[in-house]
C-alpha cells in the first residue's frame, strides 16, 4: 500500500503528511519537557536544602552545547544539500551530525560516570563531605561492613536467603580467598556440619529453596492434621462419639505428616545453625544489615556475654564472629560545613586529626583562614553596591557557599606548605616527608582529591549516597531530564543514521522524498537542540 502525501502536499493542509505528524509529535514533546521544567522550578523553590549552585562541571556541558549547535547547522545543511541535489554534501553534513551525536553521548557518559563514582556523606552534625570511596582490599573495607572471625552462621529457614555467600571476601590468613573454587579444611567452603542434626549440608540457593519448599509441605500436612484433630476434640468435648471416618482420616493425615517430616528433617525447624570449619570474613553493604539506620556499632554487631559479636542481616540470618570494621574509608575532595552548628567543631576535623598526614597539614587552620578571607572578600564586594549584604556577609547565601564549602584543591592553595618551605619541613615534627607533602599538593591541585584516607565511623553517618538521583531532588531531576534528553539524542541519531546509510536508493528514485524525510528527522533534531539550550544554563550555570 502506498502511503499518501509523502512528497506532494495535501490540498487541505498544504503540507506533506509526515510534516504535520512531526509537528504534532513535537507539540506533545513540548508539553512533556514543559512539565519537567515546571517540576524543576517547584523542586527548586520548595527545596529544604541548599540548592546546588555551580555544582556541575561547566566544560563538558559547554562543549556539548557547542556540539549540538554545530549538529543543528549540519543537519539543516544536509537537508539543503538534498534540496539542491548535492548528495555528496548531504553525506558529509549528515556524517558530521552523527559524529556530533556520538561526541555528545560520550561526554554525557563521562559526566554520569564521574557522578556515579563520586560520593557524599552527611554526618550527624550536618557536615557534608564529598569524595571517593576507597576500594576495599585486605586493609580497608571501603564502604562495606567487614565482619571477621565468623565461626557460626544461623539461617532462619523461613526468611534467610543465600545472598551472604558471595559476600564472603576472605578467609583468615588468606587475604585473597574466594569461595568459588577454594576449599576450607578439605571441604567445599559452603559445605557445613549442622549442629543439631549432625548432617552435612552444602548451602546453595537451590538447597535453601528445597528446604523452604519442604517446610511448605510439612506445614500443609500439619495444618490438615490439626484441623481434623480439632474437629475430633470438639466431639470429645461434647462427649459425643467420634465418627469412624474422621478418626481414620486423622490417622491417615498423621501418617502422611510423619512421612513428610521424616523425608525432610530440617523442615520442622525454625532455624539451622552451622559451624564453620575455619573462621571466615564477610563484607556487607550496610543496607543488608539489620538496624543500620539506628546507627551505633553495637547495632551492627552486638557484643555477647562470651565476648563474641553477633551480627544480624535483614533476611534474618545471624552470624557470630570476633571483629567488625564499619568505618567508611574515604578520599575527601570537598567539605561543606554550612549546616554544622559550629563549623570549628565540625565532626570532619576529628577524622582529619586522626590521619597523621592530614593532621600535619593543619587542614582546619587552612579552612578557617580561607573562611575569614572569603567573608572579608564578600564584605568588600558588597560594600558599595549592597551595603546591607556587606554588613551580613557571613549570613549571605553566596558568601556562605564560598566560605563554608571548600574543595580540597582550594584548601591546598592555603595549606601551610609551599614549594619553598617544603624543603625546610621538619620531618620529625610532621608525620609526612617533603616528598609526601609535594605529592599531596600536586594531587590536590591536579585532581582536587586528597591521597590520604580518612575513616568515617558509620555511626556518625546520617546519609550516604553517590551523586545519583538518590542524593537530592536536584540530582533526581537533573538525571531525569538529561537522561530523557540523552534518549532523544540516541533516537534522533538512529533515525538520521538510517537515512544516511540507506538513503542512496531513494535519492536516485525520488530525491524529494528523501529530502522530506531528512527535514522531518531534522526538525526532531532541532527540538533536541533547543531542549538542551534550556537545560544547559538551568543546570550548569544557574
Amino acid at each position: 500500500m502506498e502511503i499518501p502525501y509523502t512528497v506532494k502536499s495535501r490540498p487541505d493542509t498544504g503540507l506533506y503528511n509526515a510534516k504535520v505528524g512531526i509537528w504534532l509529535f513535537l507539540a506533545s514533546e513540548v508539553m512533556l519537557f514543559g512539565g519537567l521544567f515546571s517540576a524543576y522550578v517547584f523542586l527548586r523553590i520548595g527545596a529544604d536544602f541548599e540548592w546546588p549552585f555551580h555544582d556541575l562541571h561547566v566544560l563538558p556541558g559547554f562543549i556539548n552545547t557547542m556540539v549540538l549547535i554545530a549538529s543543528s547547522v549540519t543537519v539543516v545543511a544536509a537537508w539543503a544539500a538534498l534540496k539542491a541535489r548535492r548528495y555528496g554534501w548531504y553525506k558529509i553534513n549528515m556524517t558530521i551530525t552523527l559524529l556530533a551525536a556520538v561526541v555528545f553521548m560520550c561526554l554525557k557518559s563521562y559526566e554520569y560516570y564521574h557522578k556515579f563514582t563520586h560520593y557524599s556523606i552527611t554526618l550527624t552534625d550536618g557536615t557534608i563531605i564529598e569524595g571517593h570511596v576507597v576500594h576495599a582490599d585486605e586493609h580497608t573495607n571501603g564502604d562495606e561492613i567487614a565482619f571477621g572471625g565468623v565461626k557460626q552462621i544461623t539461617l532462619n529457614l523461613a526468611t534467610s536467603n543465600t545472598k551472604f555467600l558471595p559476600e564472603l571476601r576472605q578467609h583468615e590468613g588468606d587475604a585473597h580467598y574466594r569461595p568459588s573454587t577454594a576449599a576450607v579444611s578439605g571441604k567445599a567452603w559452603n559445605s557445613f556440619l549442622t549442629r543439631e542434626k549432625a548432617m552435612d549440608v552444602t548451602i546453595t540457593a537451590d538447597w535453601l529453596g528445597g528446604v523452604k519448599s519442604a517446610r511448605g509441605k510439612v506445614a500443609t500436612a500439619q495444618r490438615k492434621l490439626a484441623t481434623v484433630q480439632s474437629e475430633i476434640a470438639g466431639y470429645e468435648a461434647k462427649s459425643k462419639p467420634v465418627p469412624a471416618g474422621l478418626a481414620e482420616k486423622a490417622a491417615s493425615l498423621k501418617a502422611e505428616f510423619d512421612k513428610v517430616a521424616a523425608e525432610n528433617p530440617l523442615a520442622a525447624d525454625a532455624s539451622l545453625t552451622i559451624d564453620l570449619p575455619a573462621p571466615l570474613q564477610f563484607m556487607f553493604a550496610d543496607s543488608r544489615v539489620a538496624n543500620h539506620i539506628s546507627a551505633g556499632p553495637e547495632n551492627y554487631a552486638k557484643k555477647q556475654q562470651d565476648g563474641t559479636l553477633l551480627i544480624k542481616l535483614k533476611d534474618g540470618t545471624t552470624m557470630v564472629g570476633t571483629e567488625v570494621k564499619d568505618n567508611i574509608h574515604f578520599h575527601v575532595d570537598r567539605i561543606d560545613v554550612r549546616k554544622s552548628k559550629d563549623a570549628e567543631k565540625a565532626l570532619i576535623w576529628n577524622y582529619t586529626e586522626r590521619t597523621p598526614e592530614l593532621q600535619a597539614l593543619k587542614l582546619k587552620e587552612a579552612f578557617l583562614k580561607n573562611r575569614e578571607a572569603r567573608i572579608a572578600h564578600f564584605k568588600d564586594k558588597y560594600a558599595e553596591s549592597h551595603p546591607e549584604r556587606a554588613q551580613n556577609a557571613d549570613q549571605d547565601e553566596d558568601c556562605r557557599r564560598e566560605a563554608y564549602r571548600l574543595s580540597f584543591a582550594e584548601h591546598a592553595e592555603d595549606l601551610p606548605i609551599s614549594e619553598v618551605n617544603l624543603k625546610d619541613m621538619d620531618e620529625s615534627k610532621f608525620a609526612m616527608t617533603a616528598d609526601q607533602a609535594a605529592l599531596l599538593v600536586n594531587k590536590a591541585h591536579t585532581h582536587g582529591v586528597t591521597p590520604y584516607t580518612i575513616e568515617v565511623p558509620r555511626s556518625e553517618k546520617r546519609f550516604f549516597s553517590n551523586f545519583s538521583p538518590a542524593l537530592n531532588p536536584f540530582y533526581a531531576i537533573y538525571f531525569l531530564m538529561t537522561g530523557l534528553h540523552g534518549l532523544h539524542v540516541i533516537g534522533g541519531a538512529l533515525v538520521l543514521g538510517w537515512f544516511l546509510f540507506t538513503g542512496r536508493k531513494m535519492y536516485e528514485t525520488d530525491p524529494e522524498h528523501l529530502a522530506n524525510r531528512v527535514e522531518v528527522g531534522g526538525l526532531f533534531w532541532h527540538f533536541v537542540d533547543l531542549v538542551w539550550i534550556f537545560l544547559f544554563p538551568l543546570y550548569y550555570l544557574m
Partner: protein
Amino acid sequence: MSHSSDTKDDHAADEHPLDFAKTVRTYLKVGAVLILFTFITIAVAYMPIFDFGNKALNIGFGLLIATFKVSLVCLIFMHLNHERGLIYKTLLFTIVFAAAMMFLMVLAINSPIRGGLWQLFGQ
C-alpha cells in the same frame, strides 16, 4: 519544503531551486550567533561585571538569552519564519497549554514552603 509562496503548489522548492551555498552561509551565521550567545550566557553566570547582586536577575537574564537562542533555532533552522498556517495553529495550542502549566507556578507565590516563589527573587 514549504517555502513561502502564494500558491499552494506541491513542489515550491523544485520551481525555485535552493541556492545551496547561500542557504548554508545563512545557517552558518545563525550557528555563529548561537555560539556567541552561549559564551554570553556563561559570562552572565560567572563574570563579576554581570553580578547584579541578585541571583534572580542573572537567572532571568540567562533564560532570556536561552529564549532568544531557541527562537533563532525555531525560526531559521526549523523554518517557522515561513510555514503553513496549520503548524502555527497547532503551536498556538501548545503555547497556550504550556503557558497554563507554567502559570501553576504563580500558585506557589504564597506557598508556606520556605517563602514560596518569592525566595527565587531573593526576598
